[in-house]
């Protein structure tokens, strides 16, 4: 059964979703916290103990005033790793959370034994006049949706069908992402230089239709991590875990049991 609990991590209150049992799978979310009702959560929970914190400021979570950079989030999760149930941890990062996961893995925390990056952001690969990451703040909302999903008509949220609470959470997600990642936009100029430090087995999963960060960017990301494997998920955009949860979890399961 899913529970969301408030965990104290070094004095910072963190909302954490837990589901399943067995080996810990720490999931760092992207532009929105993991939806506890999303099929991917139960599917993952069949293979692992899913531990999914909400980055402070996202959703309905609190954010301390002095916690406002990716540097802070990375250290928060390095702290969280220390207090997870015993045993080796698989670290998974989606989208913006992929940036955090890559930073954490490059720091070589002893608890992390595997890394999964999903449509991750965080590095600069193109030349100075070619942005790698779609500007989700300065681009027309309809265009962002078109580039975000394989099937926008099916998956793009309809604000008129969302609860007031969900709309407030959505606005808080955008505000938090903007605070953490406006400049440089969703990447650390130095991270690519240090990805060679990632020594754990790594799977890089990518939605074949992702127009926020393209598969070409994913391949370039993967190439910088020694021994990492790149896999595309068909008929999925920036969120394969939402558009193709079955195929997504099957890739994860195969990787965990390899």
């Amino acid at each position, binding site marked *: 059964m899913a529970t969301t609990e408030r965990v104290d991590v070094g004095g910072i209150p963190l909302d954490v979703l837990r589901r399943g049992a067995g080996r810990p799978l720490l999931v760092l979310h992207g532009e929105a916290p993991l939806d506890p009702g999303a099929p991917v959560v139960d599917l993952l929970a069949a293979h692992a103990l899913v531990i999914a914190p909400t980055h402070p400021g996202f959703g309905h979570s609190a954010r301390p005033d002095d916690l*406002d950079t990716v540097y802070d989030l990375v250290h928060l999760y390095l702290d969280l790793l220390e207090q997870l149930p015993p045993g080796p941890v698989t670290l998974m990062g989606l989208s913006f959370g992929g940036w955090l996961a890559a930073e954490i893995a490059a720091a070589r925390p002893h608890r992390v034994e595997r890394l999964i990056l999903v449509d991750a952001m965080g590095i600069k690969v193109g030349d100075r006049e070619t942005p790698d990451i779609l500007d989700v*703040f*300065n*681009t*027309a*909302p309809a265009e962002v949706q078109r580039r975000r999903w394989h099937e926008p008509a099916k998956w793009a949220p309809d*604000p*008129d069908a*969302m609860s*007031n609470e969900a*709309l*407030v959470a*959505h*606005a*808080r997600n*955008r*505000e938090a*992402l*903007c*605070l953490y990642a*406006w*400049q440089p936009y969703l990447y650390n100029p130095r991270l690519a230089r240090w990805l060679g430090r990632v020594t754990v087995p790594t799977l890089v999963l990518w939605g074949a239709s992702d127009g926020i960060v393209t598969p070409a960017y994913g391949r370039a990301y993967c190439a910088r991590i020694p021994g990492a494997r790149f896999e595309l998920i068909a008929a999925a955009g920036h969120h394969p875990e939402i558009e193709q949860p079955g195929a997504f979890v099957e890739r994860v399961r195969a990787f965990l049991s390899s």
Partner: protein
Amino acid sequence: MQAWYLNENPYPFVPPHVLDAAESVRGSLPNKYCDPKIAADLFQEALDEYLLCDDIGINVVSNEHHAGINCLFGASPLILGILARQTRNVRILSLGTLITVRTDPVRVAEEYATADVISRGRLEIGFVKSGGTEMASGNANPVGIVDRFWEAIDLILKALSHREGPFSWEGKHFTHRHVNIWPGPWQQPHPPLWAATGDPTTSAELGRRGIVNVMVFRTAEETARAWGSYRKARAEAGLPAPGPDRFGHTAFVYTGDTDEEGVRVGGKLLWFLNTALRSAPQYSKFLPGAVPAELAPALYTTKPRPGVPAAARPAAGLIGITAEQAMAKGLMFAGNPDSVYRQIREYRERVGPFEHLVLASRSGFMTHGEATKGLRLFAREVLPRLREL
């Protein structure tokens, strides 16, 4: 009462079909639609209007906006440099350079000090938070701008008033280890300060700091609320009650020979609200931090919801306003000299005494000839009576 002239120097000559098709008239409209030859004429006309003001006793205001048809003045300090030299008599207000967008407040302080010295102490410094498209065109994080705004002001004021060689600033938003501007300002410790806001929380802080609180296109209700907050904050801090010189109001103003002419020509000023404010949603209502997240239900939904109040976005709510509506709200004073005087006096009775009236008296397709005629009439027939108030 003193009068101040503001011409934002808009560029209205983009073909209507281009404007209609554009997602936004600010931020993303290609500059191929701005003919530099036409822009040069507009700059010359605007500067001539400022020189006319210098002759007829109306102070002048320079502002700045970026990447849009609403304002060709992209750098207020640059225009201040011209005004500081070419005017001889009047006060010069910068309202202002966008300090939430400028990455180094020390350079802002240096530019302001220079303009103050060139003008031999006629500069007044206004601070504006900016927002919307300015964040995109200025590459500035829209989240946390209030905090950045105040730190920038603190650093600018220390840079202006510090006389004893380099000091170090290692703040949350700005670091500059060796601050030492040359020259310092003419006016010591620094030129008079203004800030444009209708937000009661910000007005309260202006009150505690004693900064002139100027409204820009705000209704009487909004103005009274902000100034009430200013007075209350001073009283609560045990500070003396503010005089009228701490308050200013910006309105569209046009004085004609007749009421008909005043309203007809003055109505052209509303182009600013009806055309130049149109901004794509990603630069306005969906811009993170622009409005509190709690207002999202009103901003994101297309249908009204029970219990969800309309979002408070004063400027956008004015799009489509008529001259009569603008006059009723106190956003525009227009008519013959008697009518303009009466409207200003009545507005003053509604919001309380204020010393500074900023005249937004040229915009849109109003011609240079129309603008100068209105300014001359105002200076001759209206301003002397306002000075008596």
